[in-house]
């Protein structure tokens, strides 16, 4: 076994004996790593799968350093990444690309992203001069979340099938120094359903915020994929999701998240989650509403939630009618989205999303091309290694041995270059993953914008409702005043109507407040997005470029050596 010998690989003279050459052939990561990589994903269509398979393969490969496989063991604040000053005027400056150890400390690694989240600005300066600090806070709060240890469990209740339903739970471990949590380290077991609940509750409570989207339910994949693979895939996705939540300055302080991370046991379902009861309640309520038995009025407290989540079918119909009137009716709705700045921003965000998506696709192509280059280079090296063995075995003339020696130079270099390409690529994937992350964020942005428009719709509906009610009241009053002595039934109706109007007024005021609140949230989040995006993208670019420089230099050196050693016609071997 060659062991973790990557530094050793820098030296030549590996093939002192044929056994070692054979070991090289056997150990060649091409056969192990690439097959696993290609087995994991037959197309390079998904960035994520490419990334996970590359890093998976890297951790499984015997020659890759162990550091990558156990992130929990590293202390991220220990030593900063080693980046020499890239501005050195010396053209031959050799920029050390992130070495394996440094990868852990790099801000692009999602292990450390949370760590350096709210890092002390002074300690952050120790970091590479290249990376900008995302955080403006000078506190050193952190929340680190790990998802691990998937376990299969049995459904104990409601099992219609003998043997019961099984599901998986995941161990969610949190380490934090934030006082609110009450403890510095704790764990819970959660199943995916709980995550869905968390996500729904956050959506209710944090309307207008860019809430990171939760992982998909993947109903189809869970049936089709291998169980192990699917569970692992989900574990990774969950970890990412929870870490993103913890990064969000507002959401990390939410009760929902705190409860999710700390309190064992089933999460209480949110009001709007329980679809079945929601529909039942709504169906029961509707006839009563129509016949005037139950209140047809939207209660103020309900107004803070969008209609479609609620139990009120009547409200749903009204808002639908309003939205149709908005779109097709001749008259302008009572209140509209007037904020020009916002509307421009919205358009711009749409364009941005297109561009990021495009860039992400191109990035995938680049990753594939780099991967292929590494593989082919390695295969070329292998082919020459076989030739070397052959020539040496069958050598009848000295010229053959000399040629074999030349080929050895070439083959060694090709195999080294192949390794470098694949390392380069693993890093590239990490850097360019930022693009993918931001695409995910765009979903959150759409969510926040749609919170805004549904809040606006509620306001519009209530305003229309009010004007209808007022008109009806006027008509009734006009009619009843004509009857001398008063119309007992009509007066009663007018009283009821006036009550309804009062309640609706209240609801309208609440709805307007809610709308304004959401608008404000949108604004803050957009500012935060701008600031963070600029930093993240710039870091991505720098990281990508530094990486390319470092590996290109390494590869160049490898070949320069071969060129040197094959320059003479003297029959030296290298």
């Amino acid at each position: 076994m060659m062991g973790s010998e990557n530094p050793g690989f820098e030296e030549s003279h590996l093939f002192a004996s044929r056994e070692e050459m054979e070991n090289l052939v056997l150990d060649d990561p091409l056969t192990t790593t690439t097959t696993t990589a290609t087995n994991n994903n037959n197309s390079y269509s998904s960035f994520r799968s490419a990334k996970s398979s590359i890093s998976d393969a890297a951790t499984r490969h015997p020659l890759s350093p162990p550091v990558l496989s156990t992130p929990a063991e590293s202390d991220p604040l220990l030593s900063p990444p080693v980046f020499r000053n890239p501005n050195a005027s010396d053209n031959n400056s050799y920029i050390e690309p992130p070495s394996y150890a440094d990868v852990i400390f790099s801000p692009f690694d999602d292990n450390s992203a949370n760590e350096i989240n709210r890092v002390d600005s002074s300690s952050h300066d120790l970091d590479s001069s290249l990376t900008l600090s995302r955080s403006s806070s000078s506190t050193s709060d952190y929340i680190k979340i790990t998802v691990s240890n998937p376990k299969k469990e049995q459904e104990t209740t409601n099992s219609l099938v003998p043997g019961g339903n099984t599901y998986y739970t995941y161990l969610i471990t949190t380490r934090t120094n934030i006082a609110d949590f009450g403890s510095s380290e704790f764990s819970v077991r959660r199943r995916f359903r709980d995550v869905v609940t968390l996500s729904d509750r956050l959506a209710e409570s944090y309307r207008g915020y860019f809430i990171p989207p939760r992982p998909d339910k993947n109903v189809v994949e869970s049936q089709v994929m291998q169980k192990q693979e699917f569970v692992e895939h989900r574990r990774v996705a969950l970890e990412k999701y929870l870490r993103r939540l913890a990064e969000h300055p507002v959401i990390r302080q939410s009760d929902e998240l705190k409860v999710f991370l700390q309190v064992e046991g089933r999460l209480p379902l949110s009001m709007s989650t329980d679809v079945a009861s929601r529909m039942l309640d709504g169906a029961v309520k509707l006839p009563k509403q129509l016949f005037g038995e139950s209140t047809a009025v939207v209660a103020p407290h309900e107004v803070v939630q969008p209609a479609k989540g609620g139990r009120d079918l009547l409200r749903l119909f009204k808002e639908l009618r309003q939205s149709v009137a908005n779109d097709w009716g001749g008259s302008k709705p009572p209140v509209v989205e007037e904020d020009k700045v916002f509307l421009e921003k919205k358009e711009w965000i749409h364009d941005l999303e297109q561009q990021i998506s495009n860039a992400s696709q191109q990035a995938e192509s680049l990753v594939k091309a780099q991967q292929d280059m590494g593989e082919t280079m390695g295969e070329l090296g292998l082919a020459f290694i076989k030739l070397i063995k052959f020539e040496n075995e069958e050598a009848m003339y000295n010229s053959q041995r000399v040629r074999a020696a030349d080929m050895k130079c070439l083959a060694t270099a090709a195999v080294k270059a192949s390794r470098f390409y694949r390392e380069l690529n693993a890093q590239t994937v990490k850097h360019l993953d930022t693009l993918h992350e931001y695409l995910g964020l765009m979903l959150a942005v759409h969510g926040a914008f749609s919170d805004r428009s549904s809040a606006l719709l509620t306001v519009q509906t209530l305003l229309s409702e009010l004007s209808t009610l007022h008109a009806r009241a006027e008509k009734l009053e006009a009619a009843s005043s004509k009857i001398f002595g008063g119309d007992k039934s009509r007066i009663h109706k007018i009283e009821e109507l006036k009550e309804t109007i009062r309640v609706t007024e209240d609801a309208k005021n609440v709805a307007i407040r809610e709308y304004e609140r959401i608008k404000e949230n949108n604004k803050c989040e957009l500012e935060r997005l701008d600031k963070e995006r600029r930093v993240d993208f710039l870091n991505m670019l720098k990281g990508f470029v530094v990486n390319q420089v470092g590996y290109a230099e390494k590869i160049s050196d490898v070949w320069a050596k071969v060129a040197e050693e094959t320059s003479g016609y003297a029959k030296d071997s290298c």
Partner: protein
Amino acid sequence: MEQQRSTSESSQSPRSPPSQRHLSVSVSDPVKLGNGVQGYISYRVITKTNFPEYQGSEKIVIRRYSDFVWLRDRLFDKYNGIFVPPLPEKSAVEKFRFSAEFIEIRRQALDVFVNRIASHNELQQSEDFRTFLQADEESMERLRSQETGIFKKKPADLMLMFKDVQSKVSDVVLGKEKPLEESNPEYEKLKHYVFELENHLTEAQKHAYYLLKRHRELGQSLSGIGKAAKLLGACEGQALGKAFDELGAKSETLSIKLQKEAHQLLMNLEEPVKDYVRAVQSIKVTIGERANAFRHQCELAETMKLKEINLDKLMLTRSDRVGEAEQEYKELKAESEEVTRRFETIVRRMNEEIVRFQEQKTQDMRIAFHEFAKGQARLAKSIADAWRSLLPKLEVCSDTS
């Protein structure tokens, strides 16, 4: 491949004082002639020499691919046992496309071909070679259409010949004995080596070709990234937008560099390996020739033995057919000696050739590897330089953001 051209200094010429003779040949200026299916490329072949056998010290002729084929076939016929330098493939398909790249590669390969002949001690003295270098175009055309050399044999025959040799190799490996086969262990080893070598080299050639493709693909993906980055930059605006724009521009520049290197790889790595493969295939044909010659020799030896016995019988019975038989026997003996001589020449030549071949190949490969490595180093360095030049600009962007 320019280095392959050589001005040969013949040190073994039996006729002239050594170190004075020189013969240099070049193939250049490809020109497309004819239309469509009839289309072909003509090349200018320039000879500069002081060999007395040649008319004048400089001669320029126009030749086409089939002329080179004629020359090769003639050399094969006349110089049994010598590994005649290989020609680039006929390629019926690419001919129609006639891309600039294809033409240039073929031209280089033809140039190498004539130079190898010119620097081979025996081949350089070939009369056919002189004809090729000097004859006017009409004579050349006449000669070309008359040729019925070994390569004009039907592919099926050629295959049979190879199969024969191959099966004999495996038979020996399996320990079986075949009657009409040289029992020369060293030669067996050589045959085995040649056949195996072809497999290995073909494999290497395949990967060299793929490597070329990868360069093109990487170039294309960089171009894609470049465009996307520029668009993203336009959307972002301000410092960040500028950063994306710079990255995009760099990417596109590098894309071009990669495409160029892909072309270089074709010349520096794939062609040399292909050439090596062709050379090995040429040796296989020689091996086939040797087998034929050996078989022929054995058959004649058998026949002679029978004739001898017959003759003795006739002499004992004092038949009047003795004279006839004696005559036949004499003729047969002459033929047998001729064939034996031919076989022995082949053996002698092959022994020399194999040494020369190995040395030549070592040199060729070293040059090829050198150029390939140089190209890769140069490419990687310019990639590093290009990206590195971007870093200060990115710094500026982050300072102002």
